[in-house]
């Protein structure tokens, strides 16, 4: 196809060829083409087939309001070919066809529409019930547009930006540019977003002029030049706004150019104020076959010629309802399009200059006429025009039917920002009755069409937005408002809702093949408001998200139900423009904390797991039972990286009061050289944390929490003291200090090698706390604990020295068989000792008493109002609660799997943790059972998953299973 190569409005570079492959053939487009315009240039008119009826579909709006030109591009489905810039070497496929878009075997579906009235899915296909599963398979196959493969890997780099602006302008047409310039002149920091690859909006492709005679396309380029020269305007072209939220948070995404370094970029802007200059799209004209390829909107036809140099057809009929339609007819005629007739829905009110221009060109004009049918099975061949009362008809042959009922504002940003929308009778637009805070409309969205007024309204909105963002421009605002008032105001909109047709083949929503007839059927069945019609008949829920039916549906429902209420627009939801999941995800980095010796743990063969915010070594060999790790702790000595433990300092006059509030024990008994073990409960009496406390000085305590609670501990203590005005300070030392757990009968021998002080059992006994220097250098807090049931030192050292201490101990321990142990080995070791892990042997239904920690609770300190104490007191004598018990399998059976149920005719409890003890050889563990079953010796019936009716049995036995007197850990 020959391009109109010399137009000043072109946005293509005819000299630079790009090729694409479509249906096995290579086609040539040029730089600046979209995928769709390149195909159009090569004669492609049918781009795909519709969802239900497999009707041929072609170029309609050129702005992506419908799925007509959704295609698969380079393996990515549902790409809007009309908005996607052509890149050299692209491979393009049509969607939803059996055969080709041109010859689709499923085209006969179009004749079966009578079988598929609104809601037909609900009324058939379930009788008899057996057909439903088969029908469902067919529905699934038939539904959906594009195809994505399960192993598809999205190419490209995805970026993200989080920005702050004083004024954000959405839309880079004349109004938006004027707004941005006005706001920027006041010194505000401005961001301007334009969804097309270039600024200009509706001025960009038009040759009509401003009042001073400048052609609009030239004016657009002048403004764009100014915008680009203004340093406090950050311009984002090819950037679609997708979301607007409270407090003027705006989200958008930008499509990258070749040299941008990103494919697409997610953008989040916090803006003080916002100008909405999104302009208008066209309201589709409802008539029979209104989406037949060859039927297109005014802007589409006009831009094909002016922006891309492609004449949209050979012989055209126009059926329009607004002046831009007449303007396009005149201009396209001048560019070489034959026009057989222009029908204007309006009986009067046309721009006289445009009427004169049409007459001069001998183009017949029918006022008060409208298209009622496009003829032609795949492409338009003929159009029927009719008076709007339906009385007189005429037919015109044509291969292009330019059809539009008028304009409709792109009000999505207002709706997203929770504006209360109303209906403006004069323009026929849905406009905000009440504007969201600090959000200002500009340009055609307000109903005006006069070029000077568009610019002035942009300037006004820019000044208002700048003022709302702190500039004092109110005098200028008033002046500009007066100037605007003197200009032509909003034009009267075309009132026609639908051409005089029955509507069996008049499509109100293209994406979901919803016809006027199906909407009537929905209304007749009681779905008589747009929101319900939408759901029942399927309107506006497809890829275009209501761009096509958004204006017509409420108008039609109001007309058909003869409702007296003013029509209300249907809801618009983000994203306003469908956006890739890859784009929203952006960098998608994973964030986990690593302990100070992560790398040496890894080098030692550690197999890591993400636990909460941390990465921790769970195993050090492939043996998930960890036999060697466990036995080495029992027989020699092991080292565990326990740096993830929560570590805190609390100090100040009221520190003790705060501890008394959250810990169940009497924390007044915490001493200097001894550690005090205690627990925190929530208000229900459930244990949420346990740890140890040391008093390091007057009003100065050091305490530990479990790994999972470290992040919430400060918050928790401050929460439960928030009404008290107590004076204390909390310092989270978790990341400042690393922890090594050195455990096993040889632990003392190892530690003695690096420390100078007396470590004998008398000098540093079990439960003791000491501070010393390792190798006279490294300050160390040492706690003698017994979680794993052996002689054990927990060494807290500064994070920066953690690796050094670890290496020293590794060296010192060589002679004693030292080796790593991980979290799973620790899990088994502590289980043998009957020590619980919160969340593993406790849950929502168990309190402190139920899990056997009642001994920690000091009931006398009621004055402290300890968190959980009331619930514990009230539930203390309750029977039937889940209770923690030790269990051993009968008959030397294998251990029951964790999570197995304990049952009789009902569920009575479950196995929390169970392992074969490498020390005793027995299968032992812990279970939570109803208190009636908690007595020693009770036989428990265990129901495992996949047991096929075979039960296994265990008995309640005393805990701990290992070293019941605690001689080893106290030795």
């Amino acid at each position, binding site marked *: 196809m020959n391009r109109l190569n010399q137009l000043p409005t072109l946005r293509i570079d005819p000299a630079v060829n790009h090729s694409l492959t479509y249906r096995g053939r290579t086609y040539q487009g040029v730089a600046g083409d979209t995928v769709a315009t390149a195909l159009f240039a090569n004669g492609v008119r049918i781009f795909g087939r519709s969802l239900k009826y497999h009707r041929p579909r072609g170029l309609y709006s050129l702005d992506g309001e419908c799925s007509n030109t959704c295609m698969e591009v380079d393996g990515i489905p549902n790409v809007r070919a009309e908005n996607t810039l052509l890149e050299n070497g692209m491979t393009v496929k049509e969607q939803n066809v059996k055969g080709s878009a041109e010859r689709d075997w499923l085209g006969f579906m179009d004749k079966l529409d009578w079988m598929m009235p609104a809601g037909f899915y609900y*009324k058939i296909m379930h009788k008899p019930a057996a057909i439903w599963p088969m029908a469902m398979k067919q529905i699934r196959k038939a539904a959906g547009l594009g195809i994505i493969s399960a192993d598809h890997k999205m190419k490209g780099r995805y970026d993200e930006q989080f920005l702050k602006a004083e004024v954000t302008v959405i839309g880079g047409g004349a109004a938006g540019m004027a707004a941005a310039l006005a706001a920027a002149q006041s010194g505000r920091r401005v961001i301007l977003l334009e969804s097309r690859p270039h600024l200009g909006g509706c001025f960009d492709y038009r040759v009509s002029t401003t009042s001073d005679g400048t052609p609009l396309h030239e004016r657009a380029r002048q403004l764009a030049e100014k915008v680009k020269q203004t340093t406090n305007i950050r311009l984002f072209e090819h950037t679609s706004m997708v979301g607007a939220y409270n407090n003027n948070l705006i989200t958008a995404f930008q499509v990258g150019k070749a040299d941008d370094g990103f494919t697409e970029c997610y953008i989040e802007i916090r803006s003080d104020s916002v100008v909405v200059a999104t302009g208008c799209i066209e309201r589709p004209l409802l008539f029979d076959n209104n989406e037949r390829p060859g039927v297109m909107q005014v802007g589409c036809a006009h831009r094909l010629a002016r922006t891309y140099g492609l004449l949209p057809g050979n012989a055209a009929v126009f059926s329009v309802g607004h002046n831009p339609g007449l303007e396009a007819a005149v201009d396209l005629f001048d560019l070489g399009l034959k026009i057989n007739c222009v029908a204007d829905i309006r009986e009067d009110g046309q721009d006289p200059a445009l009427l004169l221009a049409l007459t001069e060109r001998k183009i017949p004009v029918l006022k008060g006429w409208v298209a009622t049918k496009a003829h032609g099975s795949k492409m338009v061949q003929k159009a029927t025009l009719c008076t709007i009362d339906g009385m007189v008809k005429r037919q015109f042959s044509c291969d292009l039917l330019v059809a539009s009922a008028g304009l409709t504002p792109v009000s999505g940003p207002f709706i997203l920002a929770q504006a209360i929308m109303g209906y403006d009778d004069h323009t026929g637009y849905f406009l905000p009755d009440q504007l969201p805070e600090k959000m200002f409309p500009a340009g055609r969205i307000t109903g005006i069409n006069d070029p000077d007024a568009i610019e002035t309204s942009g300037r006004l909105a820019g000044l208002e937005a700048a003022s709302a963002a702190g500039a004092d421009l109110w005098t200028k605002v008033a002046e500009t408002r007066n100037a605007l008032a003197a200009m032509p105001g909003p034009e009267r909109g075309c009132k026609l809702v639908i051409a005089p047709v029955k509507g069996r083949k008049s499509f109100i929503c293209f994406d979901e093949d919803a016809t006027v007839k199906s909407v009537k059927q929905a209304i007749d069945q009681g779905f008589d408001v747009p929101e319900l019609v939408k*759901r029942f008949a399927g309107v506006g829920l497809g890829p275009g998200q209501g761009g096509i039916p958004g204006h017509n549906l409420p108008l039609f429902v109001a007309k058909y139900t003869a409702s007296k209420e003013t029509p209300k627009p249907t809801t618009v939801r*983000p994203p306003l423009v*469908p956006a890739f999941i*890859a784009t929203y*995800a952006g960098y998608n980095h994973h964030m986990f904390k690593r302990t100070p010796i992560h790398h040496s743990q890894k080098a030692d063969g550690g197999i890591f797991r*993400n636990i909460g915010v941390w990465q921790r070594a769970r195993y050090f060999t492939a043996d998930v039972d960890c036999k060697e790790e466990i036995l080495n702790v029992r027989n020699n000595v092991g080292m565990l990286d326990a740096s993830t433990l929560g570590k805190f300092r609390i100090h100040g006059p009221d520190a003790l009061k705060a501890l008394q509030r959250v810990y169940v024990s009497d924390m007044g008994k915490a001493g200097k050289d001894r550690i005090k073990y205690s627990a925190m409960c929530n*208000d229900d009496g459930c244990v949420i944390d346990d740890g140890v406390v040391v008093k390091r000085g007057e009003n100065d305590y050091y305490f530990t929490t479990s790994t999972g609670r470290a992040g919430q501990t400060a918050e928790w203590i401050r929460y439960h003291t928030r009404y008290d005005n107590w004076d204390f300070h909390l310092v989270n030392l978790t990341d400042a200090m690393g922890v090594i757990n050195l455990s096993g009968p040889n632990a003392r021998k190892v530690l003695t090698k690096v420390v100078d002080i007396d470590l004998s059992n008398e000098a540093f006994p079990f439960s003791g706390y000491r501070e010393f220097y390792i190798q006279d250098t490294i300050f160390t807090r040492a706690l003698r604990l017994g979680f794993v049931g052996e002689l054990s030192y927990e060494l807290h050292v500064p994070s920066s020295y953690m690796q050094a201490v670890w290496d020293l101990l590794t060296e010192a321990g060589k002679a004693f068989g030292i080796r790593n142990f991980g979290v799973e080995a620790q899990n088994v070791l502590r289980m043998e000792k009957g020590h619980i892990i919160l969340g593993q042997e406790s849950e929502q239904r168990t309190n402190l008493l139920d899990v056997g920690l009642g001994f920690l609770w000091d009931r006398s300190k009621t004055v402290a109002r300890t968190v959980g104490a009331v619930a514990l007191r009230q539930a203390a004598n309750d029977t039937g609660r889940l209770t923690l018990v030790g269990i051993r399998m009968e008959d030397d059976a294998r251990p029951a799997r964790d999570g*197995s149920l304990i049952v009789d005719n009902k569920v009575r409890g479950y196995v929390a943790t169970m392992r074969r003890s490498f020390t005793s050889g027995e299968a032992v563990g812990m279970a939570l059972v109803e208190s009636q079953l908690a007595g020693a010796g009770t036989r428990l019936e265990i129901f495992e998953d996949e047991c096929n009716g075979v039960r296994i049995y265990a008995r309640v036995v005393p805990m701990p299973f290992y070293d019941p007197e605690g001689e080893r850990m106290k030795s």
Partner: protein
Amino acid sequence: MLGKRKPLWGKKKRLKSSYDAVIIGGGLHGLATAYYLAKEQGLTDVAIIEKRYIGLGGAGRNTAIVRANQRTQENVPLYKEALDLWPVLTKELDFNLMFNNCGNVNLMHSEAAMKAARMNVATAQFHGVESHLIDAKEAKALVPALNISEDITYPIHGAMYHPPGGIVRHDAVVWGLAKGAAKQGVHIHQQTEATAIHTGGGRITGVETTRGRISTNRVLVSAGGYSAGIINRMLGLRLPISVLTIQAMVTQPLKPILDHVVSSGAYHCYANQTLKGEIATGAHMDPWPNYTTQNTAHYIKHQAEALSDWLPCLRGVKFMRIWGGLADMTPDMAPIMDGNDPVGGLYMDCGWGYFGFKSCSAVGKYMAQYMATGNCPDILKPFHLRRYENHRLMGETAALVNYTPDN
């Protein structure tokens, strides 16, 4: 033009001055209860009072997943019965509820999670509900799009596979139940707001609405997220409920790619493919009470990051629409179904959080029995309100109760 109108749920009715029972809320639970009151309890003089339109609240905003693999024996039987009722209701109502029993694959990302899942699986099997633990490879065989590599935020260890679960077309359930209830004489009053509940002598005496007063001695409050506010405002009864906004979204429609409902607790994310071909995915709750149903930029991004990880092929798919609904959360993630305490004739069915859809059929059946007889059916007994002051939370979540509403 309007002569041929035959609304599915009957012509608009005059509001009578008295009904045997009044149901506040034209959502799934209210409609189901009304349907069963009429069908099984012979109580047909029933009014449903709906402020807006039926099914516009949680009923139309959830992503329609159904399953019966809960954690405790109090819950599993109720959800099992609900699951069994979908085909029955399809037949009874002569309305295709489009039950797609494609099965649910609930991913587990650690050894600890696998253990926790084993308890759910065992509980399901003990109650005759099919559910299995499977490993990562088996999960991948079911869901080829899964990323089971080690280099994602939460590597997949395995899954809980629950074949009888799936998805139901939520709107169809609303319309089918409305049709069934109306056919048996239930009056559905849309655009009618309850403004007060009257009591006398410790009993319900009537309901005030924007279209007039109704005298009745039985009221069910089943207004989803609005229930707790209504009960407090009209009767001065506070409930252990926090109302949060929960979000979900769909992608553009695709040819079949996901044959199951797939979910992950660690990623706070589920995904399934609707019959229309969209990938429906959610769900995050903003952890503070609000009645806005607003969605957030924060969440749609989070969701994209999560899906990029474990269903990476979806990176090439576009989000099309996000929305929010209300979830009325209780501290133990289990609902409150109670009656005649502390007000005679007052029934409540609320606190469902995000489980209201999957339970509605069975709950309607038993709440109807409760309301008709005044006696609580055994299956509903564990859900009474006083369990909170009795320190008997239900254990539906293993997580510990916290002071925030999203526990």
